């Protein structure tokens, strides 16, 4: 088994575990096996890991374990939503721009390149600030960051494939532009998109964490790794490590899994092509 295959396998396994946890945690919380993530009144503050609280409690007495597990679900939701939106806008825009060319293409490329020049975090911070808090709002803020990437890849690929003889052959058969785009170009252009999705997903997890860390993005009552890390930061010098370690570790592992998956996928797709 080659290295890239092994990476893809590990990435897939870890990602599967996250998905499973994200699905099972709300069930366990609602049946009362796990404590509520926001309930901390009755608990001791900054309790170290014990049998009662597996990963300890934080400054407000909330269970770190449940919050970390819930956080994975939140992160996956936001990232999924953001990337779906980015795909929904980026891919068709890129195809239209690449296929039509001319003035439409130039204007779209200009807009997208302008967006592309802005630092990711800066752009998403400004957007998150403007849009306010909430899962859909955070997803939109992230989506705007990623649209230009899909646009670029798809547009360049389309412009390249457009010049192939089979597109001309389709034109000579009387196919309309929309038919050529959907039947002839789409399937030849999308092959590079899955890799971009997985790599962007890893990136998006980090940006979402960054937004949370800065107090933007998601509402306060939603357990999120970034905001938990922000809370934990003040206590780290006093030797309270568990509040920072578990959310941090969760974020790190998820990014790692998604990156592995992306690298593996890239190797696989280039082999298939």
């Amino acid at each position, binding site marked *: 088994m080659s290295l890239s295959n092994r990476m893809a396998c590990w990435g897939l396994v870890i990602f599967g575990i996250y998905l499973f946890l994200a699905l099972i945690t709300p069930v366990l919380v609602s049946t009362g096996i796990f404590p509520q993530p926001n309930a901390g009144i009755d608990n001791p503050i900054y309790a170290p890991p014990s049998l009662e609280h597996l990963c300890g409690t934080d400054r407000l007495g909330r269970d770190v374990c449940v919050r970390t597990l819930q956080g994975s679900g939140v992160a996956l939701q936001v990232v999924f939503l953001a990337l779906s939106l980015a795909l929904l806008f980026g891919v068709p825009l890129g195809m239209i721009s690449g296929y039509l060319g001319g003035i439409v293409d130039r204007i779209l490329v200009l807009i997208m390149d302008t967006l592309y020049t802005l630092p990711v975090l800066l752009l998403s911070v400004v957007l998150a600030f403007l849009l306010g808090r909430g899962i859909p709002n955070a997803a939109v803020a992230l989506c705007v960051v990623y649209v230009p990437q899909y646009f670029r890849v798809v547009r360049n690929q389309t412009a390249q494939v457009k010049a*192939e*003889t*089979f597109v*001309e*052959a*389709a*034109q*000579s*058969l*009387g*196919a*309309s532009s929309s*038919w050529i785009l959907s*039947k*002839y170009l789409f*399937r*030849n252009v999308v092959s590079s998109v899955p890799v971009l999705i997985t790599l962007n997903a890893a990136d998006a997890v980090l940006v979402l964490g960054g937004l949370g860390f800065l107090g933007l993005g998601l509402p306060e009552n939603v357990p999120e790794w970034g905001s938990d890390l922000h809370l934990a930061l003040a206590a780290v010098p006093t030797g309270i490590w568990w509040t920072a370690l578990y959310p941090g570790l969760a974020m790190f592992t998820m990014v790692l899994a998604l990156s592995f998956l992306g690298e593996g996928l890239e190797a696989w797709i280039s082999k298939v092509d």
Partner: protein
Amino acid sequence: MPTSLEQILQIKNLRVRYSNSHRWTLDGLNLQIAAGERMALVGPSGCGKSTLAKAIIQLLPSGSACEGELLLAGQDPRSLSPNELRTLRGQIVGLVFQDPMTRLNPLMTIREHLLDTLRAHRPEKNHVWYHQRTASLLEKVGIGSNRFAAYPHELSGGMRQRLAIALAIALKPSLVIADEPTTSLDVAIANQIMSELHSLCTELKSALILITHDLALAGRWCERMAIMDRGCIHEEGSSFELLTIPKSNIGKRLLHAAKGREGKSKLGRSYSPIVLEIENLRCWHSQSDLPWKQKWIKAVNDVSFSVHYGESVGVVGASGCGKSTLCRALMGLSPIRGGVVKLESQNILNLHGRSLKRARQRMQMVFQDPLASLNPKMTIGEAVADPLIIHNLATKSKAKEVTRELLNQVGLRPAERYENRFPHELSGGQLQRVAIARALTLKPKVLICDESLSMLDSEIQAEILSLLGELQTKLGLAILLITHELSVASGFCHRILVFDNGQIVEESPANQILHAPKAKITQSLVQACPMLPSTARQKNV
């Protein structure tokens, strides 16, 4: 080395296998070539011709196995050190490849290419000698001194092949191997290139191995011929003998195919109504962006002709004469500046929108490169059914039925075996059949074939031609066959139009054009066109 003076190349029982393959690509091959001899190596594609060339100069990819006896000028190239091998490659064997562009360095000028070769192999000579030798070599292959500083991309295909020949003969090798040297060139240029190669080899007393799939070409330029198939030589002898009475099965098959490709001249057709009428068609491309300073390239200029139902018309001409622009313009892929195109007495240039779309259904095109003209991500079945779906002519299940019928009709039987495959899984000939099936889906009245045969080897060409002929009689198709090979056009078509500089310079029945060409360009095309002996004799009579 007593024998090496006579035998420049001796091969006995040579076997070659590539590292990733289980099959021996060359299997027990025997071949001898005497000094100064010209030998043609012919065979269908995939028979191992090019592998043999690579084996002779040991350019096989690493990991390949090469067994048997191989003596080149008395030496076994396998026993040589890399340095000696390099000397051998330039000084004893010169190579001319099919596509010279990929073998030339895009950052080096013509002169630098030659200087580089000379310097590497004759380090003892001085600067003046290099330059004199370069100039004389380029002059010999017909490249003028004004082009010495040109880069490969600035040259035409013919010029590039001339440079490749100059490089191959630069060190006066005793053996020149030409691997399909003219396949990517048009007939007139190919003929020039071959005659130059021929006379240079005579002058240098070099032996020549000409690798080709074109029997007529081989017969014209080489006195001896060897027919190869599945990695060994099946028949060897004088070209004339092989082209008149071949003994081996493969020889008979190839000759039959080559004859089928040349076809029998058809007589003029009895009268049938006109399906396509073109009057004063002009396709001009503007060369400048400024509307007040127009400079036009007249790719097609004032062309008028008509095509009858069930008739095939050949459009012949050297490359760049405007024949491709003509069919692109007819298909609506290239703008038309003026004129009339009447399809079933309806001028399609006046039509717009839906009625234009409907009118165009009656005219379909088969492209040159079958693989490139099919969507790689669409199965064969989808590709053939697509026109029906585009024009909303059938439901999915009905389209599938029609597709199977069409695939059967073009000889891809049983259709179920092909419809779910992707283009890259089929051979070139099969793909061209698929392209024809797709063009027939809309039941056209006119079929335009733009060099649809030139990417296929001659055996497949003959098959496709007979398929087209069959379809023509069955469906009453009018066929417009665009080609640069006069022999193919004259065998298949009823009438031939000769194009030059965007205009029709000659129009005559196909059976007359070979015997009594009128226009100058036609005469040169007939001259250049290699013919099989039997037909050639007829021509001389």
